[in-house]
């Protein structure tokens, strides 16, 4: 993919350095002045080095020590910000109470807006900005796999096998999204629409990769997964009905239709098999399971509010 349009002095400096392959000390000295949008785009781009080719950027920069240093500073700031937003729940058990807790804490709902009121243009805009995650759906979670014990590892593999189409590329979830985009006249190459993505989308993606890349945060990664899956089936049904109301292509409908039944399975596997096994391995990870679960709901709520505000829509709650 091409490098995005810079959003400030940090990304101007970073993208120049990535293209030239030097001057990384200037990147480090730009870090303290960065705006939230600029810092989030810089971290997102540094994370992309671990996932794919960036046009004009040498592949070996993935493990450049100065860039890793910049990534670490940006990740530390992000984690501190995420943890500052979070208040741990008390008197609850993750595997017994997550579903009720999610129901009580679910925030603004884009699916409810799409179901009833959204215009075709709004749905296509949502599709473009969601493509930043949906075209690499589940990829950040795969980093967690080798860090788990036998039962949690087998459970996560069982879930991911379905996410990745159980061996059939035509059922692989991020490919289903690409087919939906193409049928809707959109470009399904990864990152095409990054310049349209608000800060909240960058933070969602940065948080998932942060949790995935750090073994220390495996509890947060799996808590995020459980919360993500537990907020998918019912909204996916509303997305299907909204897309059908607007006459959008069947391929895009099919992406959401798949998630109604798939995520009704995955949410149970995530909580009762994967997170239960993780807690059996190490009960101290319960706190980070909740932190990850909270972060998922909080970032989705912030994203939904930013889109609804962009469209000048009163908040729609599920």
């Amino acid at each position, binding site marked *: 993919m091409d490098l995005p349009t810079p959003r400030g002095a940090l990304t101007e400096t970073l993208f120049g350095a990535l293209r030239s392959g030097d001057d990384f000390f200037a990147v480090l000295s730009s870090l303290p002045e960065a705006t939230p949008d600029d810092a989030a785009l810089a971290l997102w781009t540094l994370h992309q080095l671990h996932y794919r080719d960036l046009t004009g950027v040498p592949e070996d920069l993935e493990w450049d020590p100065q860039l890793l240093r910049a990534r670490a500073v940006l990740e530390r700031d992000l984690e501190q910000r995420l943890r500052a937003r979070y208040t741990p729940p008390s008197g609850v058990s993750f595997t*017994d109470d997550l*579903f009720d807790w999610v*129901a009580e804490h679910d925030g603004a709902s884009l699916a409810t807006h799409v179901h009833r009121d959204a215009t075709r243009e709004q749905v296509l805009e949502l599709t473009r900005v969601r493509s930043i995650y949906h075209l690499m759906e589940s990829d950040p979670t795969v980093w967690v796999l080798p860090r788990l014990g*036998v*039962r949690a590892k*087998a459970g996560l593999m*069982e*879930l991911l*096998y*379905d996410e990745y189409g*159980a061996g059939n590329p035509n059922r692989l979830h991020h490919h289903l999204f690409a087919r939906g985009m193409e049928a809707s006249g959109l470009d399904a190459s990864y990152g095409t629409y990054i310049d349209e993505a608000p800060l909240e989308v960058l933070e969602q993606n940065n948080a998932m990769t942060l949790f995935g890349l750090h073994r220390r945060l495996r509890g947060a990664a799996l808590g995020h997964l459980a919360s993500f899956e537990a907020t*998918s*089936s*019912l909204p996916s*049904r509303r997305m299907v009905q909204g897309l059908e109301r607007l006459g959008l292509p069947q391929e895009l409908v099919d992406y959401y239709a798949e998630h*109604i*039944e*798939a*995520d*009704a*399975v995955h*949410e*149970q*596997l995530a909580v*009762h*098999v994967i997170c239960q096994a993780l807690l059996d391995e190490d009960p101290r990870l319960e706190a980070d399971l909740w932190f990850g679960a909270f972060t998922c709901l909080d970032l989705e709520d912030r994203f939904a509010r930013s889109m609804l505000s962009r469209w000048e829509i009163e908040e729609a709650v599920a």
Partner: protein
Amino acid sequence: MTIEHPEAILCPGGPMLLRGNHAIEDPDGLAHGTTRPVSAVCRCLKSASLPWCDGTHKVLPAELRPS
């Protein structure tokens, strides 16, 4: 050491997870084959995708959810 790995898991308040290939016969005698490695069979009987779970149990009052 063999680790317990049941073919079916009853999820509290939710569906039955079923591993592997199976056919579920509905009350009209129609067989529905599983299509994924693990399937969730509806137990609240309110799913719009019967016999499969679609998460509807989560919006039912607690007394109407499967035990």
